């Protein structure tokens, strides 16, 4: 026999088990998807396809009450299949009717419901959390591309205004050698070299002027002035000074990245609290000891802030600087010439390269930041 109290539950005997309730978005998305699917059929689009979509939405409504994961799977699969079917239809102008667009909206609502359900899945497993964390933005991005594809094909948008993602992808794969050469010229040379020199000198100068309030007061306002200089004014001058090849672009990047690093490092070196300085004083620590053991570690969040800002600035600087004179290679050069030749898909392919390179660059620095400033409350809590 169990001891009294041990087997007791604190639920009142009359209380029923907690009833399932739909989340607000689920109440809108899935009925909305079936409504648009049926609406499409009424507007003379493919009846079997429309009824199939509506059925999938109803099944998902019911499955939701059982398991969020299976509902997410069915909406995910059905919306993916629907996207494939709709893209194939979009090339035939006689099929692109009001009913077709109803079905596009229905498929998109299904995909949205899929993302909603994935986001609502509560899991303790770190691995699943990570997978969901990657999957949700990827699904979101893929559906943005699908809608882009459908709109450009279905509405026959002129290629000069907006090429479809598939056209851009085709151009991308057929001109990888050009893209690689441009990437090497602009990113591997101008951006990386300029960024490294700009950030390093900004950091070193911050340390050099650390002991001189005079220099700090004199240099920082000039720094603000220089960071306000328009890059379109500086770039042609750098081309005159350093020639057409990448060194002039690297020089623009150095100018753009130097002062953010200087200003942030100076601020970071002043971030340590008075008590921590007193502590170093009681140890009879030298200037350099308290610099390396206290002030630079304390400045790290500021320094990484500058590194992240500068990664974006460096990309912009190098690409825009190439508009003002360059050998016949480079991402900025390609963008400006291909626009002139109406090859907008090539421009978009370069934009895709720039976006990927920029994101990876930023991501790598953000990752390094998490490793180096693991102790900072903003990193610790997440």
């Amino acid at each position, binding site marked *: 026999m169990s001891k009294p109290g041990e087997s007791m539950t604190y639920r009142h005997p009359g209380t029923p088990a907690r009833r399932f309730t739909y989340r607000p978005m689920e109440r809108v998305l899935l009925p909305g998807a079936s409504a648009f699917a049926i609406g499409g059929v009424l507007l003379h689009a493919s009846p079997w396809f429309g009824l199939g979509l509506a059925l999938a939405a109803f099944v998902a409504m019911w499955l939701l009450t059982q398991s969020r994961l299976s509902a997410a799977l069915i909406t995910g699969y059905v919306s993916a299949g629907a996207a494939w079917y709709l893209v194939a239809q979009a090339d035939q102008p006689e099929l692109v009717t009001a009913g077709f667009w109803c079905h596009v909206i229905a498929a998109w609502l299904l995909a949205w419901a899929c993302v909603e359900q994935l986001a609502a899945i509560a899991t303790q497993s770190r691995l699943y959390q990570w997978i969901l964390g990657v999957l949700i933005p990827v699904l979101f991005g893929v559906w943005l591309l699908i809608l882009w594809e459908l709109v450009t094909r279905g509405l026959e948008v002129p290629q000069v205004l907006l090429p479809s993602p598939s056209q851009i992808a085709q151009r991308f794969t057929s001109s990888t050698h050009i893209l690689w050469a441009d990437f090497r010229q602009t990113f591997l040379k101008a951006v990386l070299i300029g960024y490294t020199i700009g950030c390093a000198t900004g950091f070193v100068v911050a340390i050099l002027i650390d002991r001189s309030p005079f220099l700090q007061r004199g240099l920082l306002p000039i720094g603000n002035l220089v960071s306000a200089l328009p890059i379109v004014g500086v770039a042609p001058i750098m081309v005159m000074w350093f020639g057409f090849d990448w060194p002039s672009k690297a020089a623009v990047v150095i100018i753009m990245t130097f002062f953010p690093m200087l200003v942030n490092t100076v601020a970071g070196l002043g971030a340590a*609290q008075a*008590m*921590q300085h007193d502590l170093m004083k*009681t140890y009879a620590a030298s200037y350099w000891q308290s610099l390396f*053991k206290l002030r630079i570690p304390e400045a790290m969040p500021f320094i990484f802030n500058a590194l992240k800002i500068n990664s974006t600035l460096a990309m912009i600087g190098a690409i825009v600087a190439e508009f003002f004179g360059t050998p016949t290679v480079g991402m900025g050069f390609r963008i400006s010439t291909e626009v002139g030749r109406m090859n907008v898909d090539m421009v978009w392919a370069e934009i895709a390269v720039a976006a990927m390179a920029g994101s990876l660059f930023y991501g790598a620095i953000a990752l390094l930041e998490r490793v180096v400033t693991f*102790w900072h*409350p903003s990193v610790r809590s997440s």
Partner: protein
Amino acid sequence: MTVADTVIDIERLSLTFPSSDGDVLALQDIDLTIRRGDFVSFIGPSGCGKTTLLRVIADLERATAGTILVNGITPKQARLARAYGYVFQAAALYPWRTIAGNVALPLEIMGLKGEAVRSRVGKNLELVNLAGFENKYPWQLSGGMQQRASIARALAVEPDLLLMDEPFGALDEIVRDHLNEQLLQLWAKTHKTVVFVTHSIPEAVYLSSRIVVMSPRPGRIHDIIDSDLPRERDLSIRETQAFLQLAHRIRAGLRAGHSYDELA
């Protein structure tokens, strides 16, 4: 009492802080001698200069008049000789260093390396009952454990003099009682001279062999009380008549020094 027994010798010491509405007299005519092995508490309301006096001993502030000798030399020479360990109101541990790394910090600054650092870190963490927490980061420990780690850090330089500025002020009373007990055991084990700033009467009576009662505006010493409590004591001593009498004398001293004036 021989000269060699005197750790801190203060004569007619004054300190004024310049401020926008005239100079503020933070300390006035302080005369105080602290003997080797004493546990001396400075007690008084905020603004009485007790922390300032401790900071003058540590050479974190400079006196504007009078003389002060620490170990027979000036506070600056004593600081450069690493004659004392200082425990602040907050633990002030570096969050990017582990507990062991924090305790090793002053040793690294002294230029010690390798095994010498490791053995001293281990020994001092054991003294404050933190063995086993070497690889934790400060933010993973409770406030009481952080403050114990900061005491181990102050002890790591192996000073004969320990300066403590309201080290347990931010902790709750249960943790504070516990740390007070441990501090007394530590004092008994290491025979160090301790100068301790507090605004808690029971804490001052419980810990100290001598109690310096200070009063504000200007900061000055009102009374110096030699405790007749036995050196070996535990928390139950706080119920005894002798303890209560000492506490009463401190309270009377604080009142006579007008410490309670604007609180009434």
